[in-house]
C-alpha cells in the first residue's frame, strides 16, 4: 500500500526522516497545482529526483550543462540499449565519457537544488510507492545521497515559527543528544552558528539558556535545533519538574507501584474474555 498524505500535515523533512530510518526503497511523488516532483530512494538514500517539467535522461542534462557532447550522448544511449539492468549513468562511467566524481558532483548539485525547492512547499499531496524504481536513463547518482544533509539544508530555508513550533512548543524545552549522535553527524556539514549551538547541547540547558549563552536570538536557536531534531541528532524534552518537597524538606516519595498479583489478575480476566 502506498503511504499518502499532505506535506501540510506531515512535512517533507519528516518524510525524509522516515525514509532514512526505515531504509525505504521507492518513490515519493509530490504534487501541487500543476507541479509534480518525484524523489527516488534506495535503502533510505536518495538516488535521483525528477520534475514533471524537467524529466530528461541524464545524457540530455549533461549536454545542457556542457559536460557531454551530443555525439557522446548518442554513443552512450546506443550502448545502453544493449545492456539490461544497468543505468545510463553507469554506462557513461564505463565508457569513460565522464569521470565518476565529476558525474556525482554535477548530478548531486542538480538533484539537491530540486529537493531544496520542495522545502518551500507549505502544502502538497504526497504518495510514497514502495519499491518503485526510476527509469534507468534518469539522472541517477553513482553514490546515493544521505538524507540528513538534505534535511539540514532544507531546514535552513525555513523562516517561519509555525512549523518549528510543531516540534518545539516553547524555549523552556531542554535539548539532549540522542544515542550515538556522532555516527549520524557524518553526512552533515554544520555552519558556524550551528556549531555554536551544537557545542552548547548538554541535556540540561533550555533553548532560552542556549540562546543567552550564544548571544543568538531564540528564533535562530530554535530553527537550528529544529534542524538537528529533524535530522534525528537530538531530542527536545520538557525540563524536569522539581520534585515536590514535604514540609520537613525531604522529597515526596514516588507513588507506590502496583502489585504484580493485581496485574496478573487483570491479565487473566482479559485473556478469558
Amino acid at each position, binding site marked *: *500500500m*502506498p*503511504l*499518502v*498524505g*499532505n506535506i*501540510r*500535515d*506531515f512535512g517533507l523533512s*519528516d518524510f525524509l*526522516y*522516515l525514509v532514512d*530510518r*526505515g531504509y525505504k526503497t521507492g518513490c515519493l511523488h509530490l504534487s501541487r497545482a500543476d507541479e509534480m516532483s518525484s524523489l527516488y530512494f534506495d535503502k533510505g538514500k536518495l538516488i535521483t529526483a525528477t520534475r514533471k517539467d524537467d524529466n530528461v535522461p541524464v545524457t540530455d542534462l549533461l549536454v545542457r550543462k556542457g559536460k557531454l557532447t551530443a555525439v557522446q550522448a548518442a554513443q552512450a544511449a546506443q550502448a545502453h540499449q544493449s545492456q539490461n539492468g544497468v543505468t545510463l549513468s553507469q554506462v557513461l562511467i564505463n565508457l569513460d565519457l565522464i569521470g565518476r566524481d565529476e558525474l556525482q558532483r554535477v548530478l548531486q548539485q542538480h538533484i539537491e537544488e530540486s529537493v531544496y525547492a520542495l522545502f518551500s512547499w507549505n502544502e502538497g499531496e504526497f504518495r510514497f510507492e514502495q519499491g518503485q524504481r526510476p527509469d534507468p536513463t534518469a539522472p541517477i547518482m553513482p553514490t546515493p545521497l544521505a538524507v540528513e544533509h538534505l534535511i539540514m539544508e532544507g531546514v535552513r530555508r525555513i523562516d517561519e515559527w509555525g512549523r518549528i513550533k*510543531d516540534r518545539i512548543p516553547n524555549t523552556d524545552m531542554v535539548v539532549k543528544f540522542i544515542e550515538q549522535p556522532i555516527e549520524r553527524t557524518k553526512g552533515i556539514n554544520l555552519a558556524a552558528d550551528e556549531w555554536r549551538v551544537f557545542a552548547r547541547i548538554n541535556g540540561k540547558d533550555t533553548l532560552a539558556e542556549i540562546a543567552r549563552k550564544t548571544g543568538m536570538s531564540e528564533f535562530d536557536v530554535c530553527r537550528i535545533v529544529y534542524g538537528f531534531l529533524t535530522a534525528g541528532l537530538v531530542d527536545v524534552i*520538557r525540563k524536569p*519538574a522539581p520534585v515536590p518537597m514535604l514540609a520537613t524538606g525531604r522529597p515526596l516519595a514516588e*507513588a*507506590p*507501584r*502496583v*502489585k*504484580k498479583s*493485581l*496485574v*496478573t*489478575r*487483570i*491479565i487473566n*480476566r*482479559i*485473556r478469558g*474474555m
Partner: protein
Amino acid sequence: MQTVKMVISGAVNAGKTEFIKTISEIEVVSTERPATDDTRLIKKETTVAMDFGRIAIGDDLVLHLFGTPGQKRFDFMWEILSEGMLGLVILVDSTRPETFRETNRIIDFFMSYRETPYVVAANKQDRPNAWSPEELRLALRLPSHIKVLPCMATDRESVKNVLLELLDVIMQRSED
C-alpha cells in the same frame, strides 16, 4: 471494592469510543454530541466529554476504562483523567497522517506528568492506505522500547491484545 483505571487517548476520530465499546462489559457511558467545530468534517458526532467502560476483574476489583475527549479545548480533562491511572493506550488513526502531530502532542502531555506505562495502538489497520505500525513508529519518532501495536478497535481480540500488551508493560514496572 478496589478500582483501577486505564486511559484511552488519541486525536479526534482515532477510535477511542469504539475501542472501549468493544471490550467493556457495560453499555459504554458516552457523551456523544453533534460535532460543533471542524471535527464535523470528520464525523457527525464526536466525544465532547468522555467515554466510560468497565470490566469486573473479581468481586473486589474493577477495571475502569476512560476515553479522553479528542479536541484541544478539552485538554483540562486529560489531567483529571490521568490522575492515578494504571496505564495509557494512545490510539492513532493509521490512515490519517494529519493527526500524527496531534498524537505527539497528546503523548507529550501525558508523559510530562509522570512516566506512565503506555502503548501506541495503530488503529484501522484493515483500511486501505493504513500506515504500518513500524511506519507509525518512525512517523511519531517513538523510541524502540515503546510498543506500537496493530489494532482494529472494532475487533475484540485486537482490543484484548492491545490491553494485554499494555499490562505486560505495567507488569514489568510492578512490584512483588
